[in-house]
């Protein structure tokens, strides 16, 4: 799946987690802008992992701060 298609799928997946209805752009941060707690992060990561059949390890998650970085990482992890 290329970056655009991956971005489309992630946009659908993030919807139920974006409870405050914040407008999401490439530079939106998960901790700062979306104010997600660790539990929400875990559930969201699990949803992404299951959708794309990948693992995003804690080590990789530490490098992902923005929505754009997540799309890049998932695109890359699909190989």
């Amino acid at each position, binding site marked *: 799946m290329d970056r655009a298609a991956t971005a489309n799928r992630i946009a659908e997946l993030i919807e139920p987690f974006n409870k405050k209805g914040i407008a999401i752009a490439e530079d939106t941060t998960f901790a700062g802008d979306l104010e997600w*707690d660790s*539990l929400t992060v*875990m559930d969201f990561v699990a949803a992404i992992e299951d959708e794309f059949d990948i*693992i995003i390890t*804690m*080590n990789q998650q530490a490098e992902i701060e923005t929505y754009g970085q997540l799309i890049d990482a998932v695109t890359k992890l699909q190989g």
Partner: protein
Amino acid sequence: MTDLFSKFDPLIEQRRALLAGGVEDPFNLVMERVLSPTVAVCNGRETILLGTYNYMGMTFDPDVILAGKQALDDFGSGTTGSRVLNGTYAGHRAVEDALKDFYGMEHAMVFSTGYQANLGIISTVAGKGDYIVLDIDSHASIWDGCKMGDAEVVPFKHNDIVAMEKRLKRIPEGAGKLVVLEGVYSMLGDIAPLKEMIAIAKENGAMVLVDEAHSMGFIGPNGRGVAEEQGVLDDVDFVIGTFSKSVGTVGGFCVSNHPKFEILRLVCRPYVFTASLPPSVVHTAATSIRKLMHAGNKRAHLWENSRTLHKGLRDRGFQLGTEEPQSAIISVIMPDLERGAGMWEALLHEGLYVNLARPPATPAGMTLLRCSLCAEHTAEQVQTIIGMFERAGKKAGII
């Protein structure tokens, strides 16, 4: 200059607001005198202890006390050295022998705390390029062991067998895998489906580490823990445990049947680069562990206590962490930190100590009043405790 402490400001403010309401500080209690495994004088009041990890009540066992006193006379107050240099005394060997007999395993390695046992084993066994798959509700010592090592860390949803299996199957071919589980999860007092989880871990070529800190001495026919209870102890590669709960002193350990296990004594940094336990501690631990091998009656009484308290609290309208009592921990769920602290204080004024547990120690941001029972609590004490909960619960507006 940036004040490095500014990152703690939100917590400082939260504490200030809580204490400004006049509540006794839940995290600053002093036990002035300890009268027995179940009663102490705290902040000037005689108090029933329902928040210790003294599950089997071994802290005042006469044989245990005697062994400690004798060791102080015979070996002195401390070893002043690492286990691998001058810090291994006869008592350290004796307690490792007691652990091998207790678990029926080939190898035992004793650390200075349970925290260090997890820190050391996990960070050493799983190295660069290996994968650790662990439950998201794992204890801080497990997480810190992951952080200290160089392995890739993959958490899964608490006790979710399918989520664990999916993640194991996605790990690249040929990578080393360590699955880390706990027997009893200490916040809610629930147990893990180890039988199913360990079978899946083995099918997927993973080694398995189980932390049985909160089950030792109590769960399983021989008190070896949840893996023994579910008949899968033989499939566990590493059991981690502690002396600071049922054993009644301090220290940690790992037991294993791995043929190369002994090499860890040379490569495990939290084992090598710290002082060994004092002689009095290892002798009390060895005596206590050997007595726990024959503690069937105490185990039965502790289960009675757990069932009675669980039913008593549920019948009075408290919301509990588990549907059925699964361990010696009964967790009472509070609506929020403020009312939890109020309830905690009301209980303390009744003469009952429980643990107030709050995030980040708790799952899902919960505030909990965590009750841990002791085999030395009498049936009458348990009824007294239920009465105290009822009065305090009404006073604090919880029920």
